[in-house]
C-alpha cells in the first residue's frame, strides 16, 4: 500500500441528526475518515455510538427522519470522485453504486435473506442487475462466487432456500451476494456477532482471503476488540458520535491515548493471558445523544477529566505520531503523557 494511492472513500465531517419530540438526536457528530484500496478500517464502539448510522449514511439507506450533513467522497471505478450525500437516495446514480461498487454485509444472516426465494436466486439478482442480463452467464458468475466463499456443492445449494442453510453457511452466502459484483468498498456491519466462535473465525479468514484476491477496501464495524485486532489495518474508535482515536491497530492496542480507548481495552480480559483480579471498568453508561452539553462527550465517565477545560469545549484532535490521533486534551505530540 503506497502512500500516494488515492483513498476509495473519504468521509468529511459527517453529521447525522434525527428530529424527535424531545429535541434533536445527534447520533453522529462530525465523523471523518478515509479508506484506501485493499485496506481494512475497523470502526469500534459500543451500542449507541453511531457506527451503524455512519455506515448507512454512506449507502444512503438511513431512515427518512435522519438528516445527514458533511461530505462522503467516493471514488468510483471510473476514477471520478462523487459526493454520495448529494445524490438522491432513491435516484439512479446511487442505486448504480449500491450493490455494485459499495456493498454491505449485515449482522443477522437469517433476516438478510427473503425466505420466499432460493439462495441462488437472491445472489443472482445482484449479478443480473449490475453485470449481465444474460441468464446463463449470470448464473455461472453466481456459482463461481458461491464456490469462492466456500459453499460446498454450490450447484445443489443454488436451488435451496435460506431455511436449509446453517447460520455460518448463510453468512457465507451473504458474503457471496455482497462480493459477486466485486465492489470497491465492502461495509461489514458486525458480520460475525451472531455467529459462534469457530464459525466466526472461518468467516473472518474468508473475508481476509477475498480481500486479498479482489483488492477491495473494507469498513469493518464491530464492538469486539478481538476481531478488530485480527482483521484491521487501521482502527477508529467511536464514542457518542465522534471518532475519539484513530491509528494503526498496533498503535491503538499498544499505546491507547484516549481515556475511552484505554477503558475499553481494560474492560476486556485478553484471553490466554494471566488473570487479573479485576477488570478495569468505565463508570456510568453511554448517554443518549440528545440535547448534549458542550464539551467532551466522555466527560462524565472520564477518570482524567479536567474541570473547566473538558466541560467547556470539544477537545481538538491531536496527532501523536504518524497516523495516530486522539481527541483528548491530555494527548501531546510524541505521546509522552499518559
Amino acid at each position: 500500500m503506497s502512500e500516494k494511492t488515492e483513498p476509495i472513500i473519504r468521509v468529511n465531517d459527517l453529521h447525522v441528526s434525527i428530529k424527535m419530540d424531545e429535541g434533536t438526536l445527534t447520533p453522529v457528530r462530525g465523523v471523518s475518515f478515509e479508506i484506501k484500496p485493499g485496506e481494512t478500517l475497523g470502526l469500534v464502539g459500543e451500542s449507541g455510538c453511531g457506527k451503524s448510522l455512519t455506515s448507512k449514511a454512506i449507502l444512503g439507506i438511513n431512515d427518512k427522519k435522519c438528516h445527514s450533513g458533511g461530505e462522503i467522497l467516493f471514488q468510483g471505478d471510473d476514477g471520478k470522485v462523487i459526493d454520495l450525500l448529494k445524490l438522491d437516495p432513491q435516484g439512479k446514480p446511487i442505486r448504480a453504486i449500491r450493490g455494485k461498487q459499495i456493498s454491505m454485509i449485515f449482522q443477522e444472516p437469517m433476516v438478510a435473506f427473503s425466505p420466499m426465494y432460493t439462495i441462488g436466486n437472491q445472489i443472482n439478482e445482484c449479478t443480473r442487475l449490475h453485470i449481465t442480463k444474460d441468464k446463463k452467464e449470470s448464473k455461472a458468475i453466481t456459482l463461481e462466487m458461491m464456490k469462492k466463499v466456500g459453499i460446498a456443492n454450490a450447484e445443489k445449494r443454488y436451488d435451496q432456500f435460506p431455511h436449509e442453510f446453517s447460520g455460518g453457511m448463510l453468512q457465507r452466502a451473504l458474503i457471496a451476494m455482497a462480493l459477486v459484483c466485486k465492489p470497491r468498498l465492502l461495509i461489514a456491519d458486525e458480520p460475525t456477532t451472531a455467529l459462534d466462535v469457530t464459525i466466526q473465525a472461518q468467516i473472518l479468514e474468508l473475508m481476509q482471503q477475498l480481500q486479498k484476491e479482489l483488492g477491495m477496501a473494507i469498513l469493518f464495524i464491530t464492538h469486539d476488540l478481538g476481531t478488530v485486532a485480527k482483521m484491521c489495518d487501521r482502527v477508529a474508535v467511536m464514542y457518542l458520535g465522534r471518532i475519539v482515536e484513530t491509528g494503526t491497530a498496533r498503535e491503538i492496542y499498544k499505546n491507547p491515548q484516549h481515556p475511552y480507548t484505554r477503558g475499553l481495552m481494560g474492560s476486556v480480559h485478553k484471553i490466554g493471558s494471566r488473570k487479573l483480579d479485576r477488570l478495569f471498568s468505565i463508570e456510568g453508561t453511554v448517554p443518549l445523544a440528545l440535547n448534549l452539553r458542550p464539551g467532551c462527550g466522555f466527560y462524565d465517565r472520564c477518570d482524567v477529566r479536567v474541570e473547566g477545560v473538558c466541560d467547556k469545549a470539544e477537545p481538538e484532535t491531536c496527532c501523536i505520531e504518524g497516523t495516530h490521533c486522539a481527541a483528548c486534551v491530555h494527548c501531546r505530540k510524541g505521546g509522552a503523557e499518559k
Partner: protein
Amino acid sequence: MSEKAEKNLILQVQHISKRFTSKGVCVRAVTDVSFDVRKGETIGIVGESGCGKTTLGRCIVRAINASEGEVKYTARDGVTYDFLKLDKKEMKKVRKEIQMVFQDPYSSLDPRMTVIDIIAEPLKANFPKMPKAEIEQKVIEIAKKVGLNTTYLKRYPHAFSGGQRQRIGTARALILNPQVIVCDEAVSALDVSIQAQIINLLKDLQKELQLTYIFISHDLSVVEHISDKVGVMYLGRLVEFGETEKLFSRPCHPYTEALLSAVPIADPDIQNERIPLQGEIPNPANPPSGCYFHERCKYCQEKCKHDVPDLREVDGRMVACHFADEMHLRGFDYDQA
C-alpha cells in the same frame, strides 16, 4: 480427593439428561452431564449455540425438569438433598438457595412493576408475614450492594439502562440470600464497558457473600476471566471439565483445542493459527455414532466412530476422549503473553 474437599461440595450434578420430544422427533439437548461444584467456586460452562448449556443451567435450577439425573445440593443446614426430586414443601425451603440471573436485561424484569416491587417479590413470596418496613429496608440494603442508586427504587424498569437492569436482576436473585447462582449469559447482552462493571460486581459479591456461581457463556474470554473451573460442552455432552488455566493452556479434548484456537485475541501482534473444524455441528436430533465429535475431529480414529467415550480423569481434569492421554494439544501459552 481429600476429606476436606469432599466437605466443601455444594452441588453434585450427576448424569443429567434432557430430551425434548416434538412431533415424534426426540432431540437430546443434554446427555449425561456430571460435575461437582465446591463452595465459593465459579464454574464456567462454554460451548457454541445449541450445545445445551442453557438447557443444562435451567435443569440445574429446576426451571425445567430434567429427563434423568440428579442434582445433589448441600443446603445451609448441612443436609444434602436431591434438588430435582424435592416435594413442594421441601422445595419451598430449599428453592431460595439456588437462584438465577438471566441473559436479557429487558425481558427478565416485569415492565409493569416498580424496581422496589421487583426486588421485593421473592421476599414477599417466601415470607408473607414480613412487615413492610423490614422488606423495604432489606431491598435498600441489597440495592446498595449491587450499586443501584436507592433514590430511584420507585421507578419502573424502563427508566434504566441495560447495565442497571442487570444490577436489578442480580439484586432480585440475591435478596433471598442464595448459595448458588446460575448466571445464564448474564453479561452477553451488555456493552463491553458495562460487561466489565457487571463482572466486577459479580466477583465482589462472590467474595462478600461466599457465593457459588455457575457461569454459562459463549464468550471464552469472559469465562476465562471469571471461572475457577470450566466445562466445555459439545452437542449436549460435557467433553472436558477442569481448572481454567490448565484447560486453557493444555486442552485435552480436540474440540476444546479447536474452540480455543478460534478465539480472536485482542492483540494485533498475536495471530494464533486456527485449527480448522470440518463440517458443521450435527443435528442434535440425529447425532453421529460413537464420539459425537468424530466427524469433525482431525485426530479421529476407527474406535471413535463406534464407541462413545466416557468422561474420565486425565491429567487432573475430566475428559471425554479415547485418546486424551496420547495427544498433545495446543492451548494458550500463558508465560509468553
